[in-house]
């Protein structure tokens, strides 16, 4: 199994403060990986570093190609979709325009139109609200819109930053089910950063635990879920 994303010796900085210290891990193609950790541990920073949204040093390779020196938009064009914290919805635009924006770098108009229909199949509630201003959608609906927008890119890798944040448990369950479906059917590799460890570990194949900018644990999702320390710190039992 080839590594789609390979990260080596990643250091990231916010001004003078170093947030990541020599981070290293890789993602196998077609897998779902989750990055767990407490608030401020560096999970979001990791995702931002992959997309060059934060100052960093180290080597990140996507499908063999180094990402160093590329702008965020160019990294995205390589096939990496990032669903940021807080969703990053284009609130003043309609739902459908948000989806169109997800595909704005694609040349195939017909493909885009059919993909929008597929998104409406995945997320029927978006079809209902297709002409509504995205800012008026509920939190859960905006999260689905954000995921759908990311999928419109036809990405090979999807990064999700705390998709469960602020959402009701039932909605989160639905969302994770859809993520699993996307991973299996559309063959999208997924890296999901979560505080909600339980659901993330159910969805994922692999897991890493990050603490103060360093990876402290790695293994399969089952291994991590059964780990004594993880259970105490992140699963509450």
């Amino acid at each position: 199994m080839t590594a789609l994303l390979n990260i080596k010796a990643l250091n990231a900085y916010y001004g003078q403060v170093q947030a990541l210290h020599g981070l290293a891990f890789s993602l196998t193609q077609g897998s779902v990986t989750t990055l767990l950790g407490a608030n401020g541990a560096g999970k979001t920073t990791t995702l931002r570093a992959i997309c060059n949204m934060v100052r960093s040093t180290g080597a990140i390779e996507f499908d063999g190609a180094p990402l160093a020196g590329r702008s965020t938009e160019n990294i995205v064009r390589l096939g990496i979709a990032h669903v940021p914290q807080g969703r990053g919805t284009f609130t003043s635009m309609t739902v459908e325009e948000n989806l169109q924006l997800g595909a704005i770098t694609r040349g195939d108009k017909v493909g885009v139109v059919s993909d929008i229909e597929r998104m409406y199949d995945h997320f029927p509630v978006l079809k209902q609200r297709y002409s509504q201003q995205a800012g008026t959608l509920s939190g859960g609906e905006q999260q689905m819109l954000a995921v759908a927008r990311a999928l419109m890119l036809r990405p090979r890798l999807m990064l999700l930053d705390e998709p469960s944040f602020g959402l009701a448990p039932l909605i989160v369950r639905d969302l994770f089910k859809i993520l699993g479906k996307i991973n299996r059917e559309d063959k999208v590799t997924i890296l999901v950063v979560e505080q909600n460890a339980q659901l993330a570990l159910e969805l994922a194949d692999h897991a890493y635990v990050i603490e103060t900018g360093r990876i402290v644990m790695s293994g399969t999702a089952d291994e991590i879920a059964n780990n004594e320390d993880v259970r105490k710190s992140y699963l509450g039992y």
Partner: protein
Amino acid sequence: MSAVQEAVTDAPAVEAVPKRALTLGTGTSLTVLAALILAPLFVKNFIIFQMTMLLVYGLAVLALNILTGGSGQFSLGQSAFYAVGAYTSAILMEHAGMNYALTLPIAGLICFIFGFLFGQPALRLSGVYLALATFALATAMPQLLKLGYIEHWTGGVQGLVVTKPDAPFGLPMSQDMWLYYFTLVITIAIYVFSVNLLKSRSGRAFMAIRDNEIAASAMGVDVALYKTLAFGVSAGITGVAGGLGAIAVQFVAPDGYTITLAIQLFVGMVVGGVGWLPGSIVGSAFIIFVPNIAEGISKGLSGAVFGVILFLVIFLVPHGARQVALVARHLLGKLKKS
């Protein structure tokens, strides 16, 4: 970073100057002070006059620094307050025969009230909207000063001639030199006052408002009061500057206080370093001397040369003189260590 942190309001329109950098070190301050005190003894009267204007505009830029750098409110209307101060002094001196020194606190007070009142409707505006409102004020002022209705007092389009005072107690110095030292004392007093104001509770309230108005209000800062206060103080100081300017230049006329002056003061603030009070004098020097230099380089293209010099300054030191001072301090620190 949690999603909550991310949702905090976006970057403030005016960036904060670190508190430590608000004033010069003692050594530098004393050197500058010594230079300001001793220089007039060695130069001709015209240069002394220019130095007086340097201080006058420096005060005006300082006032703008308090308003924009301090409380985060944009103003392109300072020329209006400057004009009101100038005319107040002129009218009191020429029509009421008042002593020039007494006119200044009155000019300051009247402008303070004017600024405070203007601050009221300004409360509802911010950013470019406030800039436009102050811009409107500045463009209106020359026209208002020309009104036939008050021509008896203001002298209409011609304006008023102002008598330059002699040095008191028969002191052996020229009018220019006396006026310079008089202005210097006032400038120092206002500078010290301003520094202390920004360090005080009111100053902290200003800066809280500048950085995040909603948070400041949630913390119990009376935003309305402090915003109008900032306008008032800024206008008051500008008014005093206007009065001094009127006396130095020896006349007031409506077309001397146009929007061009307001824009120059703005440029002076940026070149000096927004919010950095000592930079005010650097900004003032820029707006007084660079146009002359530009004209010297090319009479026909003086505007273009000025623009190019301004661009060079903002490319090389986008944070103005404050940036230069920080670099200098850094270098000096390195020198001391080695």
